[in-house]
């Protein structure tokens, strides 16, 4: 899988035989001895955590699919049946639902990690690009999955999101009908959403393979962003990072289990326990928390088509990020000014999430009575900053910022007392 010298020696006749024909054990062994920078911190454990999340979603999802019924009259009931009558359905169902939230939580940390440490820069553009595609498909999967229980939010969320396609000029209406399989969200929609929701996680799994392959080919980045120069700069993946990842997974699972067992509904919306009713629009249609920042960007402009374009741009900009950031220095540790902008960027993302949950016309930050900054205004400011960060700050800072002095090597940094 990668360029480092293989140290695997098949010991037994069958393994020798296999090694000549399909060196799959060698591949696994090389994976384990893969030289990783010795200074990786806990932010680097989220890749492993994400792998676990994906496996959890696939396994729990397959079990759920054995009992779920993708029909508008039966879907809601079948989920109740799963929770009430299927052996351990009461455990599997919240694992899958909470698992989706945990997956997004982990992926956001993973992405912020990449941003902060400049992991998207040469020679890791392909790692980043595959990451972006994975994220895009994750969003599609999350959205499709949320439709399946056929609650009020499922139905109206699907109606709103597919409505975006209707805003596309000229072909919009036919495109929307083609996607829905009819004039409105209905049984054909539910059926195809189920089929696609079952399919996409396997596409993600394949892309993760490519993502990790590209990463092994380019080598891992690290907190100081200086490439390993000698053997002393690296450690074998196993046991050093397997044990560190395992500890982080333990902590992550504690949080996961807390939600599954004690707050299974905290991350969802009460309205999704009301069966879908096409005649009754809920008061507020809000997406799952992990889509809220994009929802805020969507609503930041008055025009529907513009809003959609802006939302698409918010994701598209991630794809060109490697070519927007002009700085050769990877890690923000050595970019004191950009680092501050980065922190503001993270805050802007949280603010966008907050605005996505609020009603645009409500007051977010009150000044005295009945006056203050509305969610709409706040969302506009945060949206502007979101784009400015990628399109102005990163390109310009790379040209004008004087980075701090960087250590010569990872080993020097570790032994020399730099952070």
């Amino acid at each position, binding site marked *: 899988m990668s360029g480092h010298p293989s140290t695997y020696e098949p010991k037994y006749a069958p393994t020798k035989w296999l090694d000549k024909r399909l060196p799959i054990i060698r591949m696994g062994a090389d994976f384990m001895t893969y030289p990783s920078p010795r200074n990786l*911190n806990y932010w680097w454990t989220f890749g492993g955590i994400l792998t676990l999340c994906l496996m959890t979603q696939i396994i729990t999802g397959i079990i759920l699919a054995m009992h779920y019924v993708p029909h508008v009259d039966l879907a809601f009931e079948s989920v109740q049946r799963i929770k009430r009558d299927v052996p351990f359905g009461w455990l599997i169902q919240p694992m899958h639902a909470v698992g989706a939230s945990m997956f997004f939580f982990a992926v956001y*940390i993973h992405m912020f990690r990449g941003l902060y440490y400049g992991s998207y820069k040469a020679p890791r553009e392909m790692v980043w690009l595959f990451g972006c595609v994975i994220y895009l498909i994750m969003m599609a999967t999350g959205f499709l999955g949320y439709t399946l229980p056929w609650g009020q939010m499922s139905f109206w969320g699907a109606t709103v999101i597919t409505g975006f396609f209707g805003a596309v000029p000229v072909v919009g209406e036919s495109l929307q009908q083609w996607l829905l399989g009819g004039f409105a969200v209905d049984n054909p929609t539910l059926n195809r959403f189920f089929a696609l929701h079952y399919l996409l996680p396997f596409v993600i799994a394949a892309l993760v393979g490519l993502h990790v392959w590209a990463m092994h080919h380019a080598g891992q980045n690290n907190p100081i962003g200086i490439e390993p120069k000698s053997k002393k700069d690296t450690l074998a993946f196993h046991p050093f990072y397997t044990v560190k990842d395992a500890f982080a997974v333990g902590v992550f699972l*504690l949080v996961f*289990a807390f939600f599954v*067992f004690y707050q299974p509904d905290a*991350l969802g919306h*009460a309205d999704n326990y009301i069966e879908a009713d096409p005649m009754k629009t809920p008061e507020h249609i809000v997406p799952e928390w992990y889509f809220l920042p994009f929802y805020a960007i969507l609503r930041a402009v008055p025009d529907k088509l513009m809003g959609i374009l802006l939302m698409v741009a918010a994701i598209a900009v991630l794809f060109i990020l490697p070519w927007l950031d002009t700085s050769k220095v990877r890690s923000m540790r050595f970019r004191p000014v950009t680092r501050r902008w980065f922190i503001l960027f993270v805050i802007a993302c949280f603010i966008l999430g907050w605005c996505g949950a609020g*009603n645009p016309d409500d007051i977010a930050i009150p000044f005295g009575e009945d006056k203050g900054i509305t969610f709409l205004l706040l969302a506009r400011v945060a949206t502007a900053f979101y784009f400015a960060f990628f399109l102005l700050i990163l390109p310009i800072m790379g040209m004008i910022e004087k980075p701090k002095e960087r250590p010569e090597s990872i080993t020097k940094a570790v032994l020399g007392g730099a952070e």
Partner: protein
Amino acid sequence: MRNVFKTAIIGTLALAGVGVGGLMAANAAGGSSDYKMKHMHWHFDGWRGTYDRAAMQRGYQVYREVCASCHQLKYVAFRHLGDKGGPYYDDHYPNPNDNPYVKAFAADWTVEEVDLDTGDIIERPAIPADMFPPIYPNAAAAAASNGGAVPPDLSVMVKARTGGADYVYNVLTSYDKDDNYMNKAMGIKIAMANPLSDGLVEYADTEYTDKDGKVHIIKAPEATVDQMAKDVTEFLAWAADPKMEQRKSLGLATMLYLLILTILLWFSYKAVWRNVEH
């Protein structure tokens, strides 16, 4: 070491942020009247909370005698009443279909069935395996009898409203004294006339037999509106989340297991990295 703490702190903050965001999203959907929701201490609150069996049994009585004239419980079967964690669970009847209470309650309802010899629709007493039957033949009939509003199914009601059990309790106890339809918790006039009034049902003592065969008697409280609202809410909370007790007890074991595992992994990590500067 310093890094670990820093990471832990940042991680905790990030999680708290997500949590607060989620809660705000949930609250955004809440009602917006001047009415102040009364928060109750429920027996099932907290990480070790269980359902109050006597309250659930009285709550079932309220449901049966009052609410059931309009509201169905379509995702609940009679046998569920005798399941572990349910109102009439009894150790002596691990199969709830044999539980005499469950059998008696089921028989108290009639369900429709097709007579296989004649093809006629006939009525028979329910058995534990039946689901709670519909109250009205269809939604139009339900709406016609209730001023145009269909009484919603109550099986997942406690989960389907922001505020959960508190909300249901407040709806039942916040009717305007002078207007039988004005619900202060909801802030509007609703199609459900105040269903409860003091002394509406006659509570009997509840009893249950513990593992050692000892019979405990729980004195019947007075059937005030407040008491009936609390009891029926306790019952509906169970109906919405019948596996809560199992989930919490497995949760405790799982969390303990994970905690020990994580601590051991921490020490393994320390041991593996003992002589490695990083």
